[in-house]
């Protein structure tokens, strides 16, 4: 079905701030005038192991609130990537953390060292989610950096604001080293896509 629905999934392990990243992204999308729908895994799987959060953005009101086919998938570790990759769009974008992901199921993927940037450049591994969010914001091309910075500032405690905004910028900068237009066009052949 054709509409301007854009679907993002954030996957990682419980405690990595996956849900917070999704909430911040949703907030930023609202600043940009989108309708948003944000959901998350709820229940035992949300703690430890793997956790996921989803954001749908659209210019029109959103009917079905969950992901149908992902346009963008952020995977912060291998377990989440393996578990939540199944409904990836053929022309989607996979962004994963170099520190915890070893095997990629698609060539439409970028591997960026979010956790290493957070740990080595910023001195706090805990902000890896925000570093990743910066890259997601840059690569999905749906929300501006000022909107993301405003949303980050609104959602994190005042004393960590500067650190998180810095993390966001570091992520965006890392994303500037890659180019979406250079990705292979689709993982399915043209004949298959027609079916």
């Amino acid at each position, binding site marked *: *079905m*054709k509409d301007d629905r854009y679907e993002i999934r954030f996957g990682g392990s419980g405690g990595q701030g996956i849900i917070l990243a999704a*909430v911040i992204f*949703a*907030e930023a999308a*609202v*600043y940009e*005038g*989108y*309708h*948003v*729908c*944000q*959901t*998350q895994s*709820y*229940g*035992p799987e949300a703690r430890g192991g793997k956790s996921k959060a989803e954001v749908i953005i659209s*210019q*029109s*009101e*959103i*009917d*079905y*609130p*969950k992901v*149908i086919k992902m346009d963008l998938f952020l995977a912060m570790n291998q377990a989440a990537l393996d578990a939540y990759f199944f409904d990836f769009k053929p022309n989607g974008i996979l962004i994963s953390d170099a520190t915890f992901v070893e095997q990629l199921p698609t060539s439409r993927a970028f591997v960026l060292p979010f956790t290493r940037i957070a740990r080595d450049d910023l001195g706090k591994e805990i902000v890896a989610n925000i570093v990743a969010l910066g890259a997601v914001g840059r690569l999905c091309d749906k929300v501006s950096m000022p909107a993301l910075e405003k949303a980050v500032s609104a959602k994190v405690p005042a004393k960590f604001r500067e650190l998180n905004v810095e993390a966001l910028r570091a992520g965006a900068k890392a994303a500037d080293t890659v180019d979406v237009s250079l990705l292979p066009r689709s993982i399915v052949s043209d004949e298959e896509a027609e079916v």
Partner: protein
Amino acid sequence: MSGGYEGKENVVNIEQSENRLVLQGNEAIVEGALASGCRFFAGYPITPASEIAELMSFKLPAVGGSFIQMEDEIASMGAIIGASLAGVKSLTATSGPGFSLMQENLGFACVAEVPCVVVNVMRGGPSTGLPTSPSQGDVMQARWGTHGDHPIIVLAVSSVRDCFEITVHAFNLSEKYRVPVILLSDEVVAHTREDIILPELKNLEVVERIRPSVPPEWYIPYEDNSRGVPAMADIGSGYRHHVTGLIHDAKGFPTQRSDEIDAFTRRQFRKITNGFCEIQMTKSLMMDDAEIAVIAYGAVSRSALRAIRIARERGVKAGLLQLITLFPFPKKAVDPVLRQCRAVLVPEMNMGQIIREVKRVNLSSKVVKYSRVDGQFITPDEIFEQLLAMYM
């Protein structure tokens, strides 16, 4: 009241985006309750309804209201009845196991005609069931959970905006008809965050119960009138009256006289029947030329909405009737749909509860059941597949 999905309100208004918030369904229920003038909450935390109690615990004191965490749901229901009798709009929120405990006192609220709103965020059951999974298994419990012949209003929400608006309606109907209103939500609606513009309070219709206009010595607490809804005095305001769970006469005292019992029971139903047109709330999409239709409620209507759009794109003339009011059953909205369409699909996250009510409206119609009972949300594709099979 009925509305459509095709209105202007669907268009994003960038200028208004400053006032747009991102709220969870449970948070929007709290905002709706506060906007309706709710100033008392008693409850016991339970997944997936806990956020309502949590938010109420700090939002209520800030507006001069009271929050109390009770020892269980039996006591919670008792507490909100007490607060409402004292003149304060009251709310409690729970999920299946707690809702079961509330049934006894819910019956008291029915017989004593105490306005109050009970939110049941449905999860898988019976018993402790599936605490973190969505379900629609409590529909008939909401209608008939408490014993005895009684009318009750049951409303179902499907989005964050619904959570706000329908909560306001729930309070309004409860105050207007002196009846408990059950607001059915589910795990999907409760935990989805969506953008919402909260209306300004001055633009919101808020209904207050009719209080006596006569001096205290003339006050007859359960005196019938044209609406069938007696004026309600706040306990402690000087209007001495008796409140009991026994069937009572106009003065509020227990009665065994068959004429009084009959009048009491019939008035309970008459007041709801009189207000039926206002109480019946539905939304529809693409019903004008529909040959087949989906009748859905709660979160499932979101999946249905998308399924209908997919179907239309493939040339299948399908429409949607979303039920907001589940009881009294909106038969006046369902009947024309059944007459117009050659088949109607009722998808539910249970083994088939509302479908029986749909069938009862018009026994000659073809009504197709679709049940999902594995703790998962029904997807648009599943509904579309069913529609396609019906259309062929």
